[in-house]
C-alpha cells in the first residue's frame, strides 16, 4: 500500500531522534506504539488497549487528544458551534472499525454560546473487529485519517492528522498494554451508563420547553440529587445556552429545557446524557436518556425503554456524520 509506506517513512523521519523507537524498528519489534503527532494547539496519539491483535476478537483503540490550556475539541453534538472530530480508517482486510464511544462531555460556555466538548485531554475509543481469518498476517497496520476542529473562545482552527499503529497478530489471548491501560480505564469510567432500573423518566412537551421529569428513588437516605445537567444528543432541539431549571422534591427532580429557535417540529424522543450530582458524593454520574415526548408526559420506567449502552448509545444514535466513520471493507 503506497499510502501506508509513505506515512511510515514520514513517521520514522519525525521520530528519528527517538533512539528506542529506531532500535525497535531495526529489530522489527512491531508492538511499538505510535508517538504523538502535533495538531494545532495540542497533540494526537493513536493507541491500542492490547499488546497484540487476536483474530476473532474485538479490541479497542483510542485517539488521545492532549490540548493546550484554553483549547477544546467537540462532542458528537457540538452544541451551538464547532464540529466533532471525524476519523476515516484504512485497515487491512479482516479488520473493521466501529463508531466512536463518546465520553460524557462538558459544557463550554462563552457569552451566549454553549458548546459541548472536551478540554485538556480526552481519549476517543473505537472498537476494531478482527476476523478469524486475520491469523495469516504477522502484523497489521491500522491507519487513521483524522479531521478535527480545535477552538478557543477567541478562534477556531481546523486540523488534520494521519496516524498509524502497527500491531502484531497472535493467536494467544490478548494481553493489555500496561502503558495505555489507565487511559482506557479512566475513559470508560466517564461513559454515560443506563440509569438505575427503578428510575422513571418522562418528557412533557410544552410550547416553549421540554420538561424532563425523573422519579429517582434514593439509593440511600442521605443522598439527595442536588444538580442535573442535560446534554442533548441531537442538534437544534434545545437552546444550549438557556439555563436548565432544576427543581427537586422527595420523589425526584425535574429539569426544564428551553426549545431551540431552530426546532420547528415536534420531536418523538428526547435523547442524550444526563449528568447528576448528589449530596456527599465527589463524583457526578452520567446516565443515558432516551425518553418518548408526550404532551401529557406519562412516566415510564427506564426498564421499558431498553436502554443499553452498546445499543442506542452511541452506535444507533449517531445517525448524522459519525456513520461515515465506519469504514466499508
Amino acid at each position: 500500500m503506497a499510502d501506508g509506506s509513505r506515512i511510515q517513512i514520514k513517521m520514522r523521519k519525525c521520530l528519528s531522534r527517538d533512539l528506542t523507537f529506531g532500535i525497535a524498528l531495526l529489530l522489527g519489534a512491531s508492538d511499538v506504539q505510535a508517538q504523538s503527532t502535533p495538531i494545532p494547539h495540542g497533540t494526537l496519539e493513536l493507541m491500542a488497549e492490547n499488546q497484540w491483535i487476536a483474530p476473532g476478537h474485538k479490541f479497542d483503540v483510542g485517539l488521545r487528544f492532549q490540548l493546550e490550556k484554553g483549547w477544546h475539541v467537540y462532542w458528537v453534538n457540538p452544541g451551538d458551534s464547532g464540529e466533532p472530530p471525524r476519523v476515516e480508517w484504512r485497515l487491512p482486510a479482516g479488520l473493521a472499525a466501529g463508531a466512536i464511544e463518546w465520553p460524557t462531555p462538558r459544557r463550554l460556555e462563552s457569552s451566549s454560546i454553549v458548546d459541548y466538548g472536551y478540554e485538556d485531554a480526552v481519549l476517543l475509543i473505537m472498537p476494531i473487529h478482527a476476523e478469524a481469518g486475520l491469523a495469516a498476517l504477522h502484523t497489521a497496520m491500522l491507519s487513521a485519517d483524522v479531521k478535527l476542529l480545535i477552538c478557543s473562545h477567541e478562534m477556531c482552527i481546523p486540523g488534520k492528522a494521519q496516524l498509524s499503529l502497527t500491531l502484531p497478530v497472535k493467536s494467544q489471548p490478548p494481553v493489555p498494554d500496561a502503558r495505555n491501560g489507565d487511559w482506557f480505564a479512566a475513559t470508560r469510567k466517564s461513559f454515560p451508563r443506563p440509569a438505575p432500573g427503578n428510575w422513571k423518566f418522562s418528557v412533557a412537551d410544552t410550547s416553549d420547553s421540554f420538561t424532563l421529569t425523573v422519579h429517582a428513588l434514593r439509593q440511600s437516605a442521605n443522598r439527595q440529587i442536588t444538580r442535573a445537567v442535560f446534554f442533548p444528543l441531537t442538534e437544534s432541539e434545545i437552546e444550549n445556552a438557556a439555563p436548565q431549571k432544576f427543581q427537586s422534591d422527595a420523589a425526584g427532580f425535574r429539569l426544564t429545557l428551553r426549545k431551540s429557535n431552530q426546532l420547528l417540529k415536534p420531536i418523538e424522543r428526547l435523547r442524550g446524557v444526563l449528568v447528576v450530582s448528589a449530596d456527599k458524593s465527589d463524583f457526578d454520574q452520567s446516565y443515558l436518556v432516551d425518553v418518548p415526548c408526550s404532551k401529557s408526559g406519562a412516566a415510564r420506567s427506564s426498564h421499558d425503554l431498553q436502554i443499553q449502552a452498546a445499543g442506542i448509545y452511541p452506535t444507533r444514535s449517531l445517525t448524522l456524520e459519525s456513520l461515515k466513520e465506519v469504514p466499508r471493507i
Partner: protein
Amino acid sequence: MKRSTLLYASAVALVLGAVLQLSAAKVGEAAPDFTGAASNGKTFHLSDYHGKYVVLEWHNNGCPFVRKQYNSGNMQRLQKQWTSQGIVWFTILSSAPGKQGFVSASEENDYLAKMQAAPTAALLDPRGEIGHLYDAKTSPHMFVINPQGVVIYDGAIDDKPTTDLNDVPGAINYVSLALEQARAGKQVETPATRPYGCSVKYADSH
C-alpha cells in the same frame, strides 16, 4: 378595578416583551429592526428595506467555515446572484476587538475588494448588538427575511458542516432554496437548520 386592569396589562406587556426578546429572530415571526454602521461609512436600517427580501450573513474572516465559502468563491457568487435580483444582503461582523474576525472599516473594505465580495453592505457590530438581537450563534449563520419583514429562514448556509472546500459544489444551499421557494410563492421547505460554524466571537465571551 381600573388600576388592577392596568397592572394586569403591564404585567402582560412585560411577559410579552420578555417572550419577544427570547424569540427575537424566530422563523415565522417579525425580524427585529436594527441600525448598522457599514464599513463604507453609511448607516443602514433594516426597516428601510420593507418590501424586499433581506439576507443576513454572520461573518468572521478567520473562521475556517467562512474561509471555505469565500476561498471557493461560493459566498461571493451567492451575493452577486441575489443582489442582482434586487435582494438586500448584509454581511454582519460581530467579532469583538482582539478576537478572530474583528477588523476595522478599512480592513473590511480591503477584504471585500480582495475577495470580490458583493454584499449590499458589511455591517460592523463589534459590540455584538445585532448579533445578540438575532441570537446569531456561528459564522456563517444565515437569516432570510421576506418583504413583509418576517423571518423565513434561520440556520446554516448549506447541508455540509465541514471546512473542506471540496464540499461546496455538492452542497444544498439553504439560503438559495429559501429564496427560490418563497419567491415562487411556495412554502419554504427547510425554514430552520443548525447554523454550523465557529462560535460568534462576542465581546463578553471569556
